């Protein structure tokens, strides 16, 4: 039951928006920039509301169902986050206001920085980056600035394990570095021989995701860091999988020099079409002078009766701004709310339960789905969505069939080192009942693959739309439903 586009609902003369009389003097718009060929939809308010409500009902979100999309940490986003983000003192201020008049907001940024430092073990944090990959780019630029400041200009090589996050090579390439891929060994760890062979005086550093994208903790993590440091390189940690280790292992203590946090994953702010991300970057004391600013700080400690005075400063050798104003501030409010609601012990429990839930699912599915690196996993694991006795059923078919049962599919075909990968991350917020329902369904689907493979190959059947033609969508890039008329010059 396709919903028409808002343009198709248009009928000439209908109106849904009424502009108030202007309270400033009218100015005529110059004739040459006026146009009459912009076919905006004409539609009544009630029909706009119904249209978008229907669209929202066709969607799957973490508020409607289980969402085990590996690597994305689609945990439930508590509603209290939304309440605090809407408080007037946070929502109705302007970044250009004098800092004395927004002390609560700057104080929140300061406290958030401090919490992130405590969780990671770093000395400095900048809240500027807008999301994960932006944090990566920022971190790599800091690494480059550090080498350059020491007159070390030949460090142009970045090592990236094949179990790293997919955005890592792009962030390094965008920073002008040469990428060298490091293979994994049979246990899913970084191959130490291959790593050490690349550690020379052209090494800028390594970008490492730990736990890696197989959901496994790098068993030789500290050796990896030592090897890179001995060659004069720096270690970038991709914090995408921080949800597995909060309160248990601190990246800086293991030898990481720079790391980005994903507030939108680990700290429960909306993402995946639901809102902007936020990718703060944490660094060691040595790298702190290069952080992008401004950074929230305490200008005056205050006294017993006096609150502290917060301000914003720029680090001395800052790589500069990476985002307008202070980053995605309202996301920081949500993340800080989450931290306050849980406290330190609560955050540790988050990681423990995230790891427990993933291991429970892995244990329930192990006999039905091949787990190529089968050992205790962290917050996620990777299974193969393929069986040798039914070669024509693929991970994609299993995923589409899952939708018939109201589950969002796991991440497909990533990481690339596992064929037909199904990357499953349940998160800590799911109950045993939900995990069991999901495992039962996957086991049933494995059965169907043998008895009725067509059921999988033509799935989904119970969703508003059936199997979409991904090839056509990728080959025929039509993004407009109408084309503006050619300008006449």
């Amino acid at each position, binding site marked *: 039951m396709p919903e028409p586009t808002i343009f198709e609902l248009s009928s000439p003369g209908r109106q849904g928006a009424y502009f108030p009389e202007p309270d400033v003097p009218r100015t005529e718009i110059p004739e040459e920039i006026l146009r009459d060929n912009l076919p905006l939809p004409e539609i009544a308010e009630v029909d706009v509301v119904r249209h978008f409500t229907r669209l929202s009902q066709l969607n799957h979100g973490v508020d409607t169902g289980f969402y085990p999309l590996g690597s994305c940490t689609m945990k439930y986003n508590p509603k209290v986050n939304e309440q605090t983000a809407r408080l007037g003192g946070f929502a109705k201020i302007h970044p250009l206001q004098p800092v004395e008049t927004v002390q609560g907001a700057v104080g929140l940024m300061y406290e958030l920085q401090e919490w992130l430092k405590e969780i990671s073990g770093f000395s400095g944090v900048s809240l500027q980056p807008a999301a994960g990959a932006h944090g990566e780019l920022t971190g790599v630029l800091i690494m480059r600035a550090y080498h350059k400041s020491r007159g070390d200009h030949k460090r142009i090589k970045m090592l990236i394990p094949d179990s790293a996050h997919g955005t890592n090579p792009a962030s390094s390439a965008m920073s002008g570095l040469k990428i060298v891929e490091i293979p994994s060994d049979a246990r899913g760890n970084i191959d130490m021989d291959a790593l050490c062979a690349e550690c020379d005086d052209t090494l800028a550093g390594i970008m490492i995701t730990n736990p890696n994208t197989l959901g496994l903790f790098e068993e030789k993590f500290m050796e990896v860091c030592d090897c890179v440091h001995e060659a004069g390189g720096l270690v970038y940690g991709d914090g995408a999988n921080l949800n597995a280790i909060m309160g248990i292992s601190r990246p800086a203590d293991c030898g990481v020099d720079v790391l980005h946090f994903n507030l939108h994953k680990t700290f429960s702010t909306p993402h995946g079409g639901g809102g902007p991300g936020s990718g703060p970057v944490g660094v060691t004391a040595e790298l702190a002078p290069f952080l992008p600013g401004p950074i929230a700080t305490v200008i005056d400690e205050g006294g017993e009766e006096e609150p502290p005075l917060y301000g914003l400063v720029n680090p001395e050798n800052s790589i500069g701004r990476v985002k307008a104003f202070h980053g995605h501030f309202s996301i920081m409010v949500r993340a800080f709310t989450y931290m306050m609601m849980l406290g330190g012990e609560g955050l540790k429990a988050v990681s423990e339960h995230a790891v427990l839930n993933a291991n429970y699912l892995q244990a329930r599915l192990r006999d039905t789905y091949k787990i190529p690196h089968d050992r205790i996993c962290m917050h996620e694991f990777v299974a193969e969505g393929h069986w040798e006795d039914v070669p024509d059923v693929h991970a994609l078919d299993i995923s589409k069939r899952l939708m018939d049962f109201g589950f969002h599919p796991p991440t497909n*075909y990533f990481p690339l080192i596992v064929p037909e990968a199904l990357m499953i991350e349940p998160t800590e917020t799911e109950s045993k009942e939900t995990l069991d329902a999901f495992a039962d369904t996957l086991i049933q689907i494995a059965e169907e693959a043998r008895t009725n493979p067509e059921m999988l190959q033509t799935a989904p059947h119970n969703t508003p739309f059936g199997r979409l033609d*991904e090839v056509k969508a990728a080959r025929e890039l039509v993004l407009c439903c109408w084309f503006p008329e050619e300008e006449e010059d």
Partner: protein
Amino acid sequence: MNFPKELKYTKNDEWIRIAGDEGTIGITDYAQDQLSDIVFVEYLVDIGDSVDKDDTFATVESVKAAADVYMPVAGEIVAVNEDLPDAPEQVNSDPYGEAWMIKIKVSDSSQLDDLLDAGGIENLERDH
């Protein structure tokens, strides 16, 4: 999986067909099968460029993944299959024919000795 006898192969699943000092290059049947439906082919080289062995000369993208395509041997680019980006599905339907990607003048024919023959690639140990 089909690996024609008259071609030479890399471990990364490129093939090269030699005629005199000219080589025609594309990706194997196995590579297209692993990538599934190819939706995008882009060349990173132009006619006249001299390109080293193992350098990337093209990128192919499927609905599942993107992959670089590497030079099996060094050479000068003498032709580029301009029709392929408009019909990337040919990589799936005819990887050794219509879907050739570039032709090169081989600069050091001794590099050909390092490549695999059809038997060699068929028996290559694959992760999957």
